[in-house]
């Protein structure tokens, strides 16, 4: 479990490195273009990894129920909303609003066991953790507001 936690944290780090790099790239090439590039390279890399490393499975992407494949749509919608909304409301509000939605829905999925996930009981520890995230959001909001028109950091989490 600890190993997986470390992995998840590392992936968050990879994500914000990616966001910073794509921010730079997006200024020159355009947001959609840089996202397309990221996804294109991602597809090729994953394809190569599958080709050489992935063991065979009974189920394939073509045999699972179609709704299980909808994940990518949410990522794209997120990205488009982000591109449209950040100039209107600013990075600070955009970041906080997304994390708020993210936390609320993840708690709901865990508690209800939606989408084929193992249900996890909503105990006091988890509620306390969410309150702590809320405090963190207040801090992030205030910090981002002070250093406004920067568009890096927590944006473009789409991929």
């Amino acid at each position: 479990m600890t190993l997986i936690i470390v992995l998840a944290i590392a992936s968050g780090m990879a994500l914000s490195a990616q966001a910073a790099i794509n921010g730079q790239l997006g200024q020159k090439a355009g947001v959609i273009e840089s996202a397309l590039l990221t996804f294109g390279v991602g597809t090729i890399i994953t394809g190569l990894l599958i080709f050489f490393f992935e063991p065979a499975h009974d189920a394939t992407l073509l045999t699972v129920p179609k709704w299980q494949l909808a994940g990518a749509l949410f990522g794209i919608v997120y990205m488009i909303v982000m591109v449209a909304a950040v100039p209107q409301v600013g990075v600070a509000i955009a970041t906080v609003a997304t994390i708020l939605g993210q936390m609320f829905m993840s708690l709901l999925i865990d508690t209800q066991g939606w989408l084929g996930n193992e249900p996890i009981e909503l105990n006091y520890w988890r509620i306390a953790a969410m309150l702590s995230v809320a405090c963190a959001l207040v801090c992030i909001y205030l910090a981002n507001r002070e250093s406004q028109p920067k568009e890096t950091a927590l944006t473009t989490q789409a991929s």
Partner: protein
Amino acid sequence: MNAIYVLLLVVSGMGLSFEAGLLGPLGEQVGHLWATLSIFGVGTALLWMIRLFTSKRKSPDWSSLPKWQLIGGLLGPVYVVALTLATPLLGVAMTMICVLFGQVTKSFAIDYFGWFGVERKQTNPLRLFGLLFIFLALCLTYIGAKS
């Protein structure tokens, strides 16, 4: 008007959790890399279409861009594979908090050291507090999962 945007942002944030919630079970069934491919393959196809129909600007001259800026594409799969591996074991909420912690730590470091050509920024103590609260949340979910 702004309220609509904020609402949209909240909903799209919910979408991200949905994505993670879908990926975990999918990866268990068809393999983690295949689940990752479904994200990137569909994403690439959709973005290509979106670009085809909306973008007015000329396609950029890829060869003139600094090569290191192209490695963003290497980091994306790392995130998605980790997501498919982690959600079945940790649950969606804990995975998201871990990711958030990694993100805030790293973006803090990026701003502080000015990595990747990002402008160096003064450390804001509020961001440190934010980081501490997220770490606290991580510890709390961890204890919650153990008990």
